């Protein structure tokens, strides 16, 4: 099976508004897929359907041969899909390191009793989790900020921290919702390098991004949404010249 994720005819309705309308696309193992479209096209809703934050009204989502449809978000993380949020959702009052440990949680085992009694197995696990978390912080370049409060980080670094938190759960599929939002040019460059590095680690990535430069360079496959419908799909160079896409973007911008 070459597809890690298959989205088949997914629909989501809020009240009377159809936010996602019969959308289907596949994500190949090891690829970087971009989900683009004007504001309000339903991109984030698709993400929320994949991660289990919303439930599909129709259609199904299959991850590595497993149906995701009715699973709660934390189970989906456990299966290997991790995400970042469009509006940054860090644990602002906690340290950078603790934020990363949150992602590590689902790979740990210590229960209530082991935690209360600090059993040797629990201590060992804690040490290893700490090591792992620091490693991921190193990877995104936030190692020296580990003891700071998350709220004290710059906007761009907060986005990186969200990625580190997602990585700590050892995902196979990484879902990035506007990772370059609020970043300056240099930071965006570095982000692009980071995304490429992630791919070389064997991760599959889906991202929503408005920075077309980044999208065109990083992604090998694009899916375009408008008013909740998929209007085009294909490699970047093809999408760039697709008349429907051009119209959709010009019509809005």
């Amino acid at each position, binding site marked *: 099976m070459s597809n890690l994720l298959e989205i088949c005819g997914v629909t989501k309705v809020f009240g009377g508004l159809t936010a996602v309308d019969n959308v289907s696309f596949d994500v190949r193992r090891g690829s970087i897929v971009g989900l683009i479209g004007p504001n309000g096209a339903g991109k984030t809703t698709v993400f929320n359907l994949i991660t289990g934050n919303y439930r599909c009204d129709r259609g199904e989502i299959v991850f590595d041969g497993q149906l995701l449809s009715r699973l709660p978000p934390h189970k989906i993380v456990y299966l290997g899909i991790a*995400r970042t*949020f469009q509006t940054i959702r860090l644990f602002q009052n906690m340290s950078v390191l603790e934020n990363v440990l949150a992602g590590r949680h689902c790979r740990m085992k210590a229960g209530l009793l082991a935690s209360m009694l600090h059993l040797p197995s629990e201590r060992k*696990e804690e040490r290893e989790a*700490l090591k792992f978390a620091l490693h991921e912080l190193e990877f995104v370049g936030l190692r020296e900020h580990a003891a700071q409060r998350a709220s004290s980080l710059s906007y761009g670094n907060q986005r990186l921290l969200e990625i580190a938190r997602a990585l700590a759960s050892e995902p196979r599929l990484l879902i990035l919702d506007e990772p370059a939002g609020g970043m300056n040019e240099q930071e965006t460059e570095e982000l692009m390098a980071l995304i490429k590095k992630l791919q070389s680690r064997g991760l599959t990535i889906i991202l929503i991004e408005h920075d077309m430069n980044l999208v065109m360079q990083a992604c090998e496959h694009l899916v375009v949404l408008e008013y909740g419908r998929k209007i085009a799909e294909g490699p970047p160079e093809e999408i760039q010249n697709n008349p429907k896409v051009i119209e959709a973007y010009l019509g809005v911008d």
Partner: protein
Amino acid sequence: MNRRMWGIIAFVAAMAAVPFCLNPYQVDVFNNIGLYALLALSLNIILGDAGMYNMGHAAFYAVGAYTAAFLNTQLGIGILWTLPISGILAGLVGLVLARPVIHLRGDYLLIVTVGVGEIVRIALINNVFGVTGGPNGIFGIARPVFFGFKIAKPHEFFFLIWGFVALTVLLFSSLKNSRFGRALDYLREDHVAAEGSGIDTARYQLLAFMLGAAWAGMAGCLYASKMSIISPESFNFWESVVIFIIVILGGSGNIAGVILGAFLIVGLPELFREFKAFSQARMWFFGLAMMIMMVFRTEGILPPRPRVFKDIDRNVS
């Protein structure tokens, strides 16, 4: 050794001196403080750590106390042996009651817990299942016997109660610095992000509720053994409110703060006993003091401090 450690040692030393320096009444005041500290520590898991508004904690306290009293008076089980049973039963009751309502947010959960507390109290008054003794409650609970040593006098209870407080503090503070404790922090800070990071928030909420309820149940068992008579009026809504106040005023989420809160809320009104002229205005001052303390220490007197990861590298190696 830092100042914090010295502080803890000094506090423990001062507390250890209490039963040897004070008269039975004064020791009994400390016993009451200890019981409330236990209750507040248990509520702190639910309210302070997991961020679930619970204003019906007296219900679980009551379940524990009545379990112990029933087992002791009807089946003759030693009251200390009933301690774990009280805890388990109160925890299970907490689990069953919380299960359908755990998804409610904030104030809606608050009124539901108030309702649960009232339902439990009314059930006790109405002698539900014929085992609670109605408004009279249950009396004639035997004194606890600890390895052949009968505990009856206030200073004997002091060691039992504060020993249990010490054990609770040890267990709960190590819980705080663990996977479990962090999970509660995450879900209190941002429910959606916690779930999205792979934490089973519903499960942790239920576990926290169960743990808090179980500990309140054990406090109830100690209360029953100390009073030797229990009745529904000891577990009314006001009781839940007092425990709630102790947690928030002392410093929600901070173990030292919660214990300090118990000293203030339970101990201060006793101090007013000394000033007979003020005895009528005792609660008036109390209400005023509550407002003033909240206004000047808006996060409680001792708010929780962030975890320190100073020696990260040493921890790793």
